[in-house]
Structure formats: C-alpha cells, structure tokens
C-alpha cells in the first residue's frame, strides 16, 4: 500500500466544529516514519480536539485520517489502538489501584484486544514481567514496581504514563503534553529519554515546554484557532513572523 518512506499518519482537510466554534479548521499534516513532529499552539488552539480525533475518541465532521495508508477516519478507538496507535494522556489515565508493574503488564496484555483467559494470572508470566520491568527501568521507575499508582508522586505518574504507552510498542505515538506538571529535572530526563527513542517510532508530540519541543522536534506545526498556520523545522518556526505574532510573541 505505502512505501516504507511514506507517512505513518496523514491528516487531510480535517474539520470539527462544536456549534459555532470551529475547533479543527481544515487541518492537514503528516507524521513520517522515525519523525518526531511537534504540535504547538496557544491554549484553546484545538490541540486536544485534534488528538481526540486522531485516536478515535471524537469523530470529525469532514476530512480523512490515514494510518500507514489505511483510512481510519471511521474506525473505533480500540481498533485504532490495535493496529498500532499508542498514546499518552494530558491528564494521567492510569489504573490507580494497580501497581506500577501491573499497569505496564496491562499494556502488554491488552495488545491485540486482550484475552478471555480466566485462569492464568498475568502477574505470574515471567516473560511479560521481565519485559515490563525493562520499560519501567527505561522511564526511571526501577524499584517502584510493586508500588500502587495511587501512592506515586505526580512526576512519577507521568513517567509511568510514558512506560504504559511505550510497552505495547505502537508504530505511532501520540504524546499529549507528557511534560505537563513536571519539574525542570524530570522534564530534562524525559527529553533525554524521548531523544533516545524517537528514531524507533513516529511521534506526534503536543507540548507547551518550548525547550523540549525545539530540542526534540524534526518538524513543528503551529496550531492557532484550529488552523495549522505554519509547518517547518524548529529554525523556520523561530524565524516565521506569523508564528511570532500568533504565538511566541504572546509569551515573550
């Protein structure tokens, strides 16, 4: 269907309105294999609405979403996840009663839709526990495997959120403000982690932390009032007067 260098995710003419409010206005963008594409924009620009449409929680009014060349515009969210779309949430979505290890195991167990097996205990699956342990180490939570999520600090939950998203090895990763609420040190650690991982996945990163965005992104798209006003490299975005006026200027 597509050659290896084709985009993993293609969004064409996507449109979504809530009454008179146009949250997604003719958005076209793509994420190529091995690319980290950052999506930035002021609050209320429609970033979360766009993510919700990509992962299937919200249906667009018009336009198409293609994943590896396949039209997934009408595919339910759980099926999109099964074909390789992974995500982290802006507001942490974890199983609070489960331990760190159980949350990552769940991600491995859910691959392919989960099992109707009512006898085997996934916590006794050594191979999966070892794999889960590796992801936990990678995000810097080693030693906390048996700790319930409800007892974790906010930053630790954000790290676990990444581990859960990564463990199922998706082909496209949507990271919705992964640094939200993290301290400078944690943000730095996560930036380093993503730097090491970004060649292995196609990543669409929504993030407010501009240092992280400019350090990580191959390309950046700027979303303002639901519209992509600019797509280009970090340097091009910095140089663009439109972006300055619409977005960076506000913060400077």
């Amino acid at each position, binding site marked *: 269907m597509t050659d290896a260098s084709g985009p993993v995710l293609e969004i064409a003419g996507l449109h979504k309105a809530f009454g008179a409010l146009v949250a997604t206005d003719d958005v076209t963008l793509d994420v190529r294999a091995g690319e980290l594409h950052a999506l930035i924009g002021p609050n209320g620009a429609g970033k979360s609405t766009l993510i919700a449409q990509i992962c299937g929680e919200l249906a667009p009014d018009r336009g198409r979403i293609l994943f590896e060349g396949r039209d997934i515009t009408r595919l339910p969210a759980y099926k999109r*996840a099964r074909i390789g779309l992974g995500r982290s949430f802006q507001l942490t979505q974890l199983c609070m009663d489960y331990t760190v290890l159980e949350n990552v195991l769940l991600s491995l167990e*859910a691959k392919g839709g989960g*099992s109707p097996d009512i006898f085997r*205990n996934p916590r006794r699956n050594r191979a999966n526990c070892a794999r889960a342990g590796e992801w936990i180490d990678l995000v810097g939570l080693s030693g906390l495997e048996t700790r319930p999520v409800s007892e974790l600090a906010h930053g630790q939950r954000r790290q676990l959120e990444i581990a*859960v998203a990564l463990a199922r090895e998706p082909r496209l990763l949507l990271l919705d403000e992964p640094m939200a609420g993290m301290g400078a040190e944690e943000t730095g650690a996560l930036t380093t982690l993503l730097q090491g991982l970004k060649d292995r996945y196609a990543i669409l990163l929504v993030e407010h932390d501009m240092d992280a965005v400019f350090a990580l992104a191959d390309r950046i798209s700027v979303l303002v009032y639901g519209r992509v006003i600019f797509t280009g490299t970090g340097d091009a975005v910095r140089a663009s007067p439109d972006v300055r006026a619409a977005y960076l200027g506000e913060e400077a």
Partner: protein
Amino acid sequence: MARSRLIIAAGLILFALVPVLAGPGGMPTLQGLFTRIVIYAVAAVSLDLIMGYGALVSFGHSMFFGLGGYVVGIVAYHVGVGEPLLGWGGSRSALVVWPLALGACALLGLGVGWLALKTSGVQFIMITLAFAQMVFFILVSLQTYGGDDGLMIDLRNTLPLIDLGDATQFYYLCLGVLVLWTVLCTFIVNSRFGMIFQALRQSERRAVNLGIRPLNFRLTAFVISAVGTGMAGILWANYAMFVTPDMAAWSKSGEFMAIVVIGGLGTLIGPIAGAAVFIVLEQTLTGWTEHWMIIMGPILTLVALFGRQGLLGRFLRHRHD
C-alpha cells in the same frame, strides 16, 4: 495476606461444622439458617464480581435469582402433574434441570447485559432494574404456575450419590457450590481477563486506547455473574421447595446489593460474611417486630458510613499476587 487466609480458614471451619453443632445440640433451625446464608452468599459473591470489580451496579440481579428458581419450579410442576412441557416429559434430575436453568439465566444475562451495557452509571442501574421488574410481572402473570401466590415444589431435584432431601447433605451441597464458585471467581479476578475487566473500572479511556473493547469484557462478566445468581435461585427453590415472584422483586436485588456492601465490595469473601450478618439480623429482628427494616435500615446506613470498606474489606482488600 496472612490475616485474610486466617479469616477464610476460620470461616470455612465454622461453616463446615454447622451440621455437627446443629445435630445433637438440638438446633435444627441453625442448619436451616446457615443453608439460607450459604445460598444468599452464592448470589452475593456473583454480584460482587461485577459490582466490586467492575463497578457495574446491577439493581436487577433478582431476575436471575427468580428465573433460576422458576425453571426448577416449573419443571417440577410438570413432572408432578404429568403434563408435558412443550412436548418434553420433564425430569427431576439436577443434572438435567440445573444446566437448563443456568442456560436460561445466561441467555437472559446476555440480552439484558448487552442492552444495559450500552449505558453506564445511573442509567445502567435503572435499566437493570427495569428488566428485573419485567421479569417480576411476567412471573406474577403466570397463572398456571400460581401467579402472585407462587408455586409449591413437591420434591427436590435428584443427584447421584447425594440425597438432596436430607437437610445435612443438602447443606453440604450448597456449601460445596459456594466454595467452588468463590474459588472460580477468585481465579477470574486474578486472571488475564480479570486484569482487563478491573482496568475498565479504573480507567476506561486508558483501556480503550490500549485496544480493549469494553463491551466484550463487561458482558462476559455480567453473564458469569447472572449464571452464579441463577445457581443461587436454583438452590433456593430446592431449599424452600417453593418459588414466588418475590424472588425477582426489586427489594431482593436491593438485599443482594446491601449484603455485598455490608461485607465489603470487591473482596468476594466479604459478601459471604455480609450474607451471614444480613440473614442473622433479619432472623433476629423479625422475631422482635414485623417492622424489622426500621432497625435494619439504620444499621446498613452506619456500615455504609463508617465501615466504608464493609465488615471485612479492611482485612481482605489485599493485592492479589
């Protein structure tokens, strides 16, 4: 962990010794009381499976209790009067009648669950209640089978090796069912299936975005729970030798929910203790006054307010690993 094992062992020994204590000590009513406790406990464990672990608050589980009981009653009626049921001569064998009753409950659970699980929260509670009311009024309208008054059962079902007519053997049969069912539910809760089913309670969004279709897991659990409650209905019909539409009344669903909450949501063992407390209180209070709910109500409220994890929740809500 060790404490919960101790509670389970102590409880099991207590339940196993009931006929010994009741027999020569001259307390035959004690055995009847415990038989009722054990039967209610089967239903409570079943309800806890979806309510405690999946946050699926079914206010209609009495429909499965009633249906299980009525299948036993109706088949027994036809065998008794020698009138074929839809061309079938009927049977007294539990090995024939019970699977039939459980199958009926599974089918009803599948239909009701499929519709009710399209909603959640309060709507789910209301839809399960509505279906239970439908079953209740259907049972009331069955004039052939006694309508409002219910249906007497002339003889208990038969099993090879076990004489259900013997009170002690019947008690041990019920206890065996309860133990096996609780063990099975424990397996389910700790299994790969159970891990995902519980994840849906904690974060449905996360689970969906990991590739889970919620309906598959919730409906499966709902049907398993329906079958367990149906089993309790079957045992009740055999114990009381009498089925009435009240078995499917909304108040019965409420009793099951109260028992689960008293005992401790999401503990499986807790609801067994909840059943014991509820039945014993009911028995004691009805001896004092027919308005026993006036006393029971405040007790339930106190447990719900101050023992937020139920009687045993504090000791039993351990991590299953």
